[in-house]
């Protein structure tokens, strides 16, 4: 069943997270503190994750994917790139084969993601707002999703 995994993840999240966090969860796009970009539009985020070169305030965005969190991935497909997983993967492969666009960098954990954006100029990655609060050297540039 396609939704069973998400239900289990959500249930686990409800059990593990504190009550106030369970009430309102957010997914945000973050970049390193060194990046001068302050805000990125939803269209630019979408374009960047579809493999199109996007520059904001004269700085090129370098998107990174956090794939270790299944729930986060589902939100990414639905509310960031607005595609099904299959369509997105097909699209990314098509761009790679057609134009030689390099595949996006992928990391498994939030810590790796934070390290990645800190280490690259204007590297961007999506993560839970809760995680951003406990990590240093990164800043939010866009609210991507909000839900209960």
């Amino acid at each position, binding site marked *: 069943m396609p939704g069973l995994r*998400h239900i289990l993840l959500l249930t686990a999240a409800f059990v593990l997270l504190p009550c106030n966090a369970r009430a309102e969860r957010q997914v945000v796009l973050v970049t390193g503190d060194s990046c001068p970009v302050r805000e990125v539009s939803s269209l630019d985020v979408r374009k960047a994750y579809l493999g199109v070169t996007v520059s904001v305030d004269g700085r090129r965005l370098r998107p990174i994917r956090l794939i270790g969190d299944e729930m986060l991935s589902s*939100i990414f497909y639905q509310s960031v790139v607005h595609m099904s997983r299959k369509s997105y993967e097909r699209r990314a492969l098509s761009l790679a084969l057609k134009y030689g666009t390099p595949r996006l960098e992928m990391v498994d954990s939030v810590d790796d993601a934070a390290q990645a954006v800190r280490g690259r100029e204007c590297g961007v990655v999506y993560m839970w707002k809760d995680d951003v609060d406990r990590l240093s050297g990164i800043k939010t540039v866009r*609210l991507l999703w909000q*839900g209960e």
Partner: protein
Amino acid sequence: MAGRMNTVGGRLVLMLLLIHAVLMPALFIALATVIDRSTMNAFVDDARIEGRIIGDGVENALESGDSGAVEQLLDSAMLSGHGVYAALQFQDRLVTSSMMTSEDVPRFEEDFDFGEHGDNTYYMSVPVSHGDEFAILRLGFDELPTQQNLAAVRQTIILILVAYTVLALVATGYMASLVVRPLKWLGRASHAISRGEVDKELKANSELREIRELSADLETMRSNLVGMNARLQKEIAEREQAEAERRTLERHLRHAQRLESLGTLAGGVAHEFNNVLQPILLYTDLAREELPKDSETADNLGKVMDLARRAKKLSNQILAFGRQDIEAELEVAELSPIIVNALTMIRALLPASVDLRAEISNDVGAVRCDEAQIKQLLVNLCNNAYQALSGRDGYINVSLKEVIVPEVFAAKYPKLRAGEYAVLEVSDTGHGMDRDTMERVFEPFFTTQQVGEGTGLGLSVVHGIVMRHDGEIVLSSEPGKGTHFRIYLPLADDE
């Protein structure tokens, strides 16, 4: 039922049913899964694209401060596709489509996959920003029509698979009949052959190569069987014929040996009897010459001499049967003049009422013979025929011709050899003889006539004469249908 399943057709259908029982559900599950996933994926894609478009429109409308456009976009989300929920969640308020009443607003539970939460609605949220504010566009799409479509597709798949199964069964039945029909035909033909109808050809009319080859092989076996059977039957017939010929030859041999023994015995007695008769005749004649011719004693002695001469004639006939009266040498002579001459004499002897027919060929080769004995032979045979005709209407037929005796015929008679023979035939339409009579007819003193009407030596003399001429007598007769004597006399060599 079990018997029906133990046929080629039954096994094929059963096998097909088993295969389909396993494959069809698997195929259905695979097809349904592929179609379900593809359809659900397309639904999710459509919903997300629509959400993105409306979200972009709402973002633009918020930036331009056109709240009416926002409501219109929310309404259009409700009207387009399968929209059932459209609302914009600000930090402090909720803006819904005008097509929704506050009672209609359901609990929003975001879905990330088709069919999640079991509420038949696919809920999704799209983040929208304007200035420093952040809002969430919440949309809901009705999953029910897609689920109904999927159910219809599943039904169609089931119908197609069932139709395919039925067609496969029909095709299998047809294929089975293609195989079974010629096999059944071959079976019936084989059964007929086993009942002895070996002429029934084993040639099945089938387009299948294997059946044709099987049929050809069976037909070859049948042909060989028929040929072998015919050869066996021929061999059996030949053996039976050889056995019959052997038995006939043995019978003839036994008959000839018996007659020969009888002839030797009778000849010996007749010879001794002649030795006694000769002085009786001599002394009786001398005694009669001493007496006056008209005296009663001379007359009595004359009677004694007549009786002694008659006795001598009888003993001579017995000697002729035993072939011990070899006085004259056999000479090479044409038979036809002898027979014609004898027939003239016989016609004079027989009553005018007797129909004596003759077919004498002048092309018959010469034989080594004693003319007098040949005449005697013909007279005796005609006399025998005349006696057989007594009191009946009929005729006597005498014929003479030349024949070539084949090996097969010669093998039946001890005296015959393959080669050229003169055949003298005497037949009558008299009372004929039974088998016992035929067996004894050449024995001396055997007669079927009343006492005093015949001596029973006529045919014995005939037998003796024929044996002396190295010939053979072939007798055929049937009671009421007459008698047929064929006398085979070997033609003389050319030198």
